[in-house]
């Protein structure tokens, strides 16, 4: 969803995207898939008021109710697409070029309590955290292996689960969501991109989400 990636400027490093500029408005997931990148959340690791091209920061709705809504843009990519920058230009230091970056990226909250999500599942797994995360250079195939996970049986946690592996496509992941909880949690981290590589302070996370009928190994 970074416009420089979509337009090919990062093609030899971070790669391209299976998303193309003409896919704005196209379906990417279920109606519960709303993904926001918002640098204006106070006190967060990815906070900023203005980006490094002087554009005022604002929330960007990347997916809205399952539809591709907008890309992250700096002035360069926005001008190529004939639109305005949405303030996503960031650099690690004054010595590096500002490029399109994420800030605080999270799934929008829903109506459920966490307990309700767990209680609604007859047979499943609660994945609290994961490791070995990787994703291909067109952002289509992704993999998560559970770090902390529990079996769910008849709506109850039924003991720890090890090495649950979710290997899934991007539309497959977002299309499988059928419920989202109210409580949001953001985790801080560093995102790497650019050449020379630039580490960037970000957060990501969101509420608990329920995926239906996905394959776990």
């Amino acid at each position, binding site marked *: 969803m970074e416009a420089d990636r979509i337009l*090919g400027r*990062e093609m030899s490093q971070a790669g391209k995207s299976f998303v193309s500029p003409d896919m704005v408005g196209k379906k990417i997931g279920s109606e519960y898939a709303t993904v926001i990148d918002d640098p204006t959340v106070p006190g967060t690791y990815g906070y900023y008021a203005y980006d490094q091209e002087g554009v005022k920061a604002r929330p960007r709705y990347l997916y809205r109710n399952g539809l591709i809504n907008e890309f992250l843009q700096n002035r360069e990519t926005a001008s190529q697409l004939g639109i305005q920058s949405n303030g996503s230009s960031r650099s690690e230091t004054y010595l590096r070029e500002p490029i399109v970056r994420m800030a605080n990226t999270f799934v929008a909250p829903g109506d459920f309590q966490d307990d309700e999500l767990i209680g609604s599942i007859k047979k499943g797994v609660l994945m609290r955290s994961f490791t*070995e995360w990787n994703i291909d250079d067109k952002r289509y*195939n992704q993999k998560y292996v559970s770090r902390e996970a529990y079996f769910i049986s008849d709506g109850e946690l039924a003991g720890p689960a090890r090495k649950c592996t979710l290997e899934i496509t991007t539309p497959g992941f977002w299309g499988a969501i059928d419920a989202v909880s109210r409580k949001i949690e953001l985790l801080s981290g560093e995102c790497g991109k650019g050449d020379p590589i*630039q580490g960037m302070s970000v957060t990501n996370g969101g509420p608990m989400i329920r995926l239906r009928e996905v394959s776990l190994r």
Partner: protein
Amino acid sequence: MKRLAELAERVMEESRKAGATDAIAEAIESYTQQVRFSNNQIDAVNSWTENHLALFVAVGKRVVSSDVRDLNSADSLAKGLVEMAKRTPPSKSYGGVASGKFKYRTARPDKRLVQLKNPAKFALDSINAAVRAGANNVGGTFFIRHEKVGLASSGGALGSDESASCDLSVRAFSQPEASGHAVCCASRLSGMDARRTGERAGELAVKAKNPVHGNQGKTDLILEPLCLGSFVQSTSDMMSALRVEISTSMFVKKIGKRVASDEVTFVDDPTVDSTTTRLFDHEGVPTRRNVMIKDGTLRTYFHNTSTAKRFKTKTTANAGPLIPTSFTFAAQPIPLHPIIVPGDWTLEEMIADTARGLYLNNTWYTRYQNYATGEFSSIPRDAIIAVENGEVVGAVKNIRVSDNMLNFWKSVDALSKESEEIYWWDEAAPPSDLPIVRAKAMNITRSS
């Protein structure tokens, strides 16, 4: 160069006068030129002049390090840092700095590289060559790097180094899902073949046309050096004694044990002519050739003085930077120039000898679910070529190598005669000299 060593020595001595019992100062001046290109055209030409002085001080076992970016203010760093060290809790793991009478070789950077003023030509040559080879969309980077270093330590190190290198990375597409990637690294301008690098990326992009979904299950893998570079990066990182000590390594308690097949000999050698040739490590210890894995058996870990003391051995001259860099710890032992010793195969022989396999051009996101056991996955990108009954039969997409890294090295049964220096971004780094290798029966998975 001598100027930087004198500056480092002065700052180191100031630190001792202020109360430091140990000190290392490293002054670095670097000039980097970069040409970035995508979609068949140049996007940006950048150049950076970056200076800094890194200073490590110890007061007993109380250690601190920091740096300044303005060499004119370097002298003022010493006193403040020593005062900070005095207020710092002691480090249980600190084992002192290397001491001795060190002698260094002489650096001989290529003056033509240092003086090069038109780097864009190399980018354009590579784009044109890739297009002529059949690509329709080409991107990449071309770097020229020139660095001068002066280092002084309270252990007696006082040295100067200077290096120059260039590296080109070209990724070419012939279709939206058909690409090839090639790199060229050179310590001499005469070694930079931009046209051949672009041509090779273009040729691979053509071979990768019309890919079909790959199959899950066991298959032989033929990895070209660029792809192998990502595996070598994580493998060599785990040879750091610090990684072993904190149990984020598959090499814990593996000294003297088999960690690879008989065919694999893994060396670290920053003394050979390469883009990362260096005269001394970040403690000032003269660099040397270290055999890490000999005929499949692990011989040693990477050490600095502190880890060597804790492991009751000697430093391997692999002390890392005094201050943390992106995604790395400060002062940990690091690989400097990994080398996999070549074998006696040709690529053609490997393909002809493979009943069912995949030829992999490149990969990224080599990530571990368990560093202690080596379980990992990695996502091949660019040309993935299927081999059946000794012949190339087409291109593949959307696969993942999901296996165990120790199993990978134990499954290597063929290495090419030819090797090349490769470096790409932060995935295949540091620059390494690698052959093509074949690993038998590796596990392939894909998205459901």
